[in-house]
């Protein structure tokens, strides 16, 4: 197992390198650089700018710049954010955590709703409940998350029972840890729901398909024939086999989840990586852009790896050597 994980990590390393090279090339291709606007800022002396250019070897050839950035990253030095005026690592650290919270809550919501719905639809196949769920899934599947978020924000602004953006209430510091937990939960609700709706639709359909397939298997017939209660047949015998294929999907889902989260962070002003990426791109803060996208990819790789490990834990038929 450990060897498998190590092997996976080692094979992704060249990919990460290639990605960082692409990113670096992209950032160098962007017209104008951050120093252009810094030079226009009368509060910053030309000496300071020169010092920064020396520090990041921006006057050296491109390859030197790239490698100096790369070696810095290996020392966990992600460079300096010219926009925030602090090291990039300090900006990103908290942001990753926030994006993780949003993705995690939305993941739990998706699975928590989609799996029972899928089971329900499979059990009542072609009955009214199934048809209704299938129709709603189609609508959910096709609804743009940003639009859902806007509708939710609108309804909430009318009723006012959830906060309209941000991550903490103004008096967050006064709460004890339970109060803080619920405060963050209230703030994450809108982006998380908006992020989940489409995935619920998709996952529900897959779950229903899997469940129907499993329910047609002979061991289910056996279980029923030996007189097990229907509840046990469905929730113990069928469910476990129907869920396994979904865990592979979990890995794929991370990519969509992170991308979706980025957009919702911007709309709901949730201080995550995606919102940071937008600011960084807009202000051409190249080190921040590169580090943020690299972190996004690392999150994605971690997610995929986690899904694979989970699959091994849950399905004894699969062994990685």
């Amino acid at each position, binding site marked *: 197992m450990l060897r498998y994980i190590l092997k996976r990590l080692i094979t*992704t390393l*060249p*990919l*990460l390198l*290639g*990605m960082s090279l*692409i*990113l670096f090339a*992209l*950032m160098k*291709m*962007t*017209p*104008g650089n951050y120093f252009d606007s810094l030079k226009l800022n009368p509060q910053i002396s030309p000496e300071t700018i020169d010092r920064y250019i020396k520090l990041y070897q921006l006057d050296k050839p491109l390859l030197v710049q790239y490698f100096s950035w790369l070696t810095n990253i290996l020392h966990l030095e992600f460079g300096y954010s010219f926009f925030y005026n602090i090291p990039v690592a300090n900006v990103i650290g908290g942001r990753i955590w926030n994006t993780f919270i949003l993705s995690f809550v939305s993941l739990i919501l998706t699975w928590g709703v989609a799996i029972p719905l899928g089971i329900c639809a499979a059990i009542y196949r072609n009955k009214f409940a199934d048809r209704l769920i299938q129709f709603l899934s*189609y*609508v959910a*599947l*096709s*609804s*743009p998350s*940003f*639009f859902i978020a*806007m*509708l939710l*924000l*609108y309804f909430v*602004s*009318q009723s006012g029972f959830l906060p*309209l953006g941000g991550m903490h209430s103004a008096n967050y510091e006064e709460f004890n840890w339970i109060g803080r937990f619920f405060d963050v939960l209230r703030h994450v609700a809108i982006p998380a729901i908006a992020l989940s709706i489409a995935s619920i639709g998709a996952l529900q359909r897959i779950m229903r398909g899997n469940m129907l397939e499993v329910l047609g298997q002979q061991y289910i017939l056996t279980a029923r024939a030996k007189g097990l209660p229907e509840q046990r047949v469905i929730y113990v015998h069928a469910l476990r086999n129907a869920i396994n294929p979904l865990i592979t999907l979990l890995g794929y889902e991370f*990519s*969509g989840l*992170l*991308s*979706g989260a*980025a*957009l919702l962070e*911007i*709309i709901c002003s949730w201080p995550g*990586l*995606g919102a940071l*990426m*937008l600011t960084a*791109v807009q202000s*051409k803060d190249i080190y921040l*852009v590169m580090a*943020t*996208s690299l972190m*996004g*990819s690392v*999150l*994605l*790789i971690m997610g995929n790896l986690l899904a694979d490990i989970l699959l091994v834990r849950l399905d004894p038929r699969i062994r990685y050597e």
Partner: protein
Amino acid sequence: MNKSALGLSQWERALTQFCANRFAVVCLIILALIHGAAIFADFLAPYSFSNEDRTFSYAPPSKIHFIDENGQWRAPFIYGRKITFDQYHKREYLDQVEQKYSLRFFVKGDAYKILWMVPCSWHLFGVKEGGRIYLCGADSRGRDLFSRLLHGARISLSIGIVGVLISFSIGLLVGGIAGYYGGKVDDILMRVCEMFMLFPGFYLLLALRAVVPASFTSVQVYVSIIIILSFIGWASLARVIRGMCLSLKEREYVLAAKTMGLSDLTIIIRHILPHTLSYSLIAVMLSIPGYILAESSLSLIGLGIQDPYASWGNLLSEAMGIVKIKFAPWILLPGFFILVTVMCFNIVGDALRDALDPKSS
């Protein structure tokens, strides 16, 4: 060659099966209508996309009346409106009973070119000079949302279709080459694909968008957005096509083509890729929504199509402020258009899959 016992070809059978799915046929018709409306937007819309009247900022949708203030029936008309502010400085538009504008068909208005060629100034409907008709309300600058929705459909839909076509051409070619040659070429191309797939799409989208210079004109931005979207989308298709080619290249007709001395590229394009057609067709249908959504999200955060040009995402960006939605809920309409279009594409794509690939369902 594909004749079955019934004497129907694979495509004829697929067509019959597709038509049996009434729901999908309805969706296909809706899609055709939306695309038709986009093509003839100039004629169907009462105004051009940039025709503005700032005195009608956020004017609510015009009510079309059939009965005038004396209870008399008459041809459909709208009242002229005047803006007033209440004590909280909230805009209110009051109907001016003495100003009536009857709804007219085939009126002269903003000049345009039919299909970008024939100059013309006829519009399907409108009101006479002095009045303004807002079927779906107005935006902040008093532009007709209905007209802008139709014009926006052009950009949103064309980005989806052109983007898909470009990225699928790349995906098919790369997948075909990787699958056909195998070995080192395959390895390298697939690693490149994985590299693109390891980026969360939206981050890559933003990073690529940063490369586009601010000095670009709207048309150039439009083209670069299409290129960016195609750049992101090809990798996953290439992987699937590569898998299919790996098995297709072992077929005897490929050997036959080789013996006949055809070049590798000809074999890939003429003899191998056509066999992936039904899969690609389904994949195209199911990925167009992704492009429409990507363009919308980019425009939504202000990095896509720039004002005064309209796209659905860019129109929806006006709804980013909650206060505005509260006073002018009609600015959410572009969202419904996106939703319906995406849903239709999904349903048609699914039905197409059921019809073309009976194994998968």
